[in-house]
């Protein structure tokens, strides 16, 4: 609990202007829940963006890109006497937490029905609860069901609604590869002018990808579109029946469309024109 107090008090006493942002309901109720028969020893150290690298080395850089604010951690002991590590990362927004989680979710991970979304593998659980990202690691002796017991206890604490951030609802549902959704906070496709992108894959594991970028206004959306056309060397590309078709120098053929303040795009279909048109129709 010391860690909780530390962050809370720092926000309250030292950063009065930041209290609202850093000490919402989430913070007040966060603790490490203890399932029946388990015990827990929270770590005293709490890490922020300045020193996360001390805990996870170079992996910290990516977390910071995804609005990482704070990490607290604990060691649980199972009824069987095995130690299980739990790390709870708080991010600035639900999308940031989901984005970081989606960066670490492997296609072969199995889904778990806890939290906003979660996945599991041998000795590990990764689960998003709103703007919190929980990572659990355990030795082989700890079974999946034991870990799920812990996961459900977190679920009771957070009470997070299940389901993806609402922006993913703007992407076509039909044909979407389950659990292929990603949120990319910055430098989407490697372009500094593309940020806060929601994307998903279609048809199969190597299929085309559809993305959504929300901007502040139709003018801003148009500026982003113009920038995309510029890198493709197609500033005068005509609007096609569905979208503007360009050849991006790094990602190949791509279609872009502006819908109010939103930009929708499709890429990764290669030379498969049938597939391209099929996806574009879904976006109409």
């Amino acid at each position, binding site marked *: 609990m010391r860690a909780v107090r*530390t962050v809370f008090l720092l926000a309250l006493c030292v950063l009065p202007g930041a209290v609202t942002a850093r000490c919402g309901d989430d913070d007040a109720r966060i603790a490490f829940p203890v399932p029946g028969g388990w015990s827990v020893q929270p770590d005293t150290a709490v890490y922020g963006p300045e*020193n996360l690298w001390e805990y996870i*080395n170079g992996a910290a850089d990516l977390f910071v890109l995804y609005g990482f604010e704070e990490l607290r951690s604990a060691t649980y002991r199972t009824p069987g006497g095995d130690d299980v590590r739990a790390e709870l990362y708080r991010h600035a927004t639900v999308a940031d937490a989901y984005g970081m989680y989606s960066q670490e*979710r*492997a296609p072969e991970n199995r889904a778990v029905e806890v939290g906003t979304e979660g996945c599991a593998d041998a000795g590990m659980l990764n689960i998003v609860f709103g703007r919190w990202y929980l990572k659990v690691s355990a030795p082989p002796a700890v079974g999946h069901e034991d870990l799920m017991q812990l996961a459900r206890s977190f679920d009771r604490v957070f009470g997070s609604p299940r389901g993806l951030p609402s922006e993913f609802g703007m992407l076509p549902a039909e044909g979407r590869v389950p659990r292929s959704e990603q949120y990319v906070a910055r*430098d989407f496709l490697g372009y500094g002018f593309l940020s806060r992108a929601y994307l998903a894959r279609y048809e199969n594991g190597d299929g085309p990808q559809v993305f959504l970028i929300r901007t502040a206004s139709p003018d801003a959306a148009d500026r982003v579109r113009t920038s995309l056309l510029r890198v493709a060397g197609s500033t005068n590309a005509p609007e096609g029946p569905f979208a503007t078709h360009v050849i991006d*120098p790094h990602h190949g053929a791509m279609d872009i469309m502006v819908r109010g303040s939103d930009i929708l795009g499709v890429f990764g279909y290669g030379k498969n024109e049938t597939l391209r048109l099929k996806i574009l129709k879904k976006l109409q």
Partner: protein
Amino acid sequence: MVRFNRRGFLRTSLIAASGAVLTGPLHARGNGDPSAPPPATAVKHTRTLGRTGLVLPVVSMGVMRSDNPGLVRAALEKGLLHLDTAHGYQKGMNETMLGKFLADVPRDSFVISTKVPAESGDSAAAIRAWLGRVELSLQRLKMDHVDILYLHAAGSKDETLAPAMLDALLQAKENGYTRFLGVSTHKNEPDVIDAAVECGVYDVVLTAVNFKQDHYPSVKAAIGRAAKAGVGIVGMKTMAGGFFDREKTKPINCRAALKFVLQDPNVTTTIPGITSFDQLDENASVNHDLAMTDEEQDALAAGRLEGGLYCQGCEHCVAGCPRNLAIPDYMRAFMYAYGYRDLAMAQTVLKEHGGANDPCHGCDSCSASCVKGFPVRERIADIRRVGSIPEEFFS
């Protein structure tokens, strides 16, 4: 293992004798057609990585923050043929992405390193577990060996020389999992570098090194000793966080930061994290122009004065304070609160100097100046409020 793609068009290799690295990857840039071979790119500045004999461009690619194979491809096209990843980045997805992308790239056209963290526990089990992680990394990378395998993040001499890990490293090399062995560090760097040289197992040290390190002279000296012993040096954390200020409003001149580190000829290459094509272009330009301009030197000098939380206790400020306040202690408390988030420690320090009382009360203006540019009065005003937190909150 040497792998060739079906066209076999790429033969960059490591053209040591010429002093230049030619690249020509992988995927056409400019027309989006993956089947077209691109023109080769020559890198002007290359260096040899100690006794490994690897000739690398002075700027390489830290892949840790990128899940974009297009960016890796572009990096290789620009001659950044050394790619650095780690077992833990993106929980293994970083290695997986690289493995998928590099599957069609000639194996002798790039130099890849990965890092595996130490295992604790008894010797045999720790070795087994560590080698298991290495094997998993190779599976993800779809390779039978990497070029450099690092023990990840050693923070002390003891960690660098841990017998089980040295045995594991040697076994990995014997198994053919790697060509060369290394250790990475961003804590107590001089100690780790010296230990790596002393034990003779490590061919390479990957170390944090940047213009903001207060202990840069000792890091540089240790790097010099390593180079003399034939241990190659790769620099990381060269951007020192990327910003001068906590609020991230003052970005560091990345090109200047890279050049600063590379002014030391004992640093063979650097591995800045790259997430965008613009960053790539900026970093890659250093491979062709290493000379620091006056403007770049000024940018680092000015920023160096602003930055950070660490007070080195020189007491220059105290001489300028009419009350002879123990300003370094207040700065230390500030660091405990903001850097380490340890409010109890901050309060303990403050209580030695009047707790929450305002030590500056009655002073109209502040004449205490800090050689690092800390805003002394503002930080004291900020941190003293921690002194008013009731003790029971820390119990």
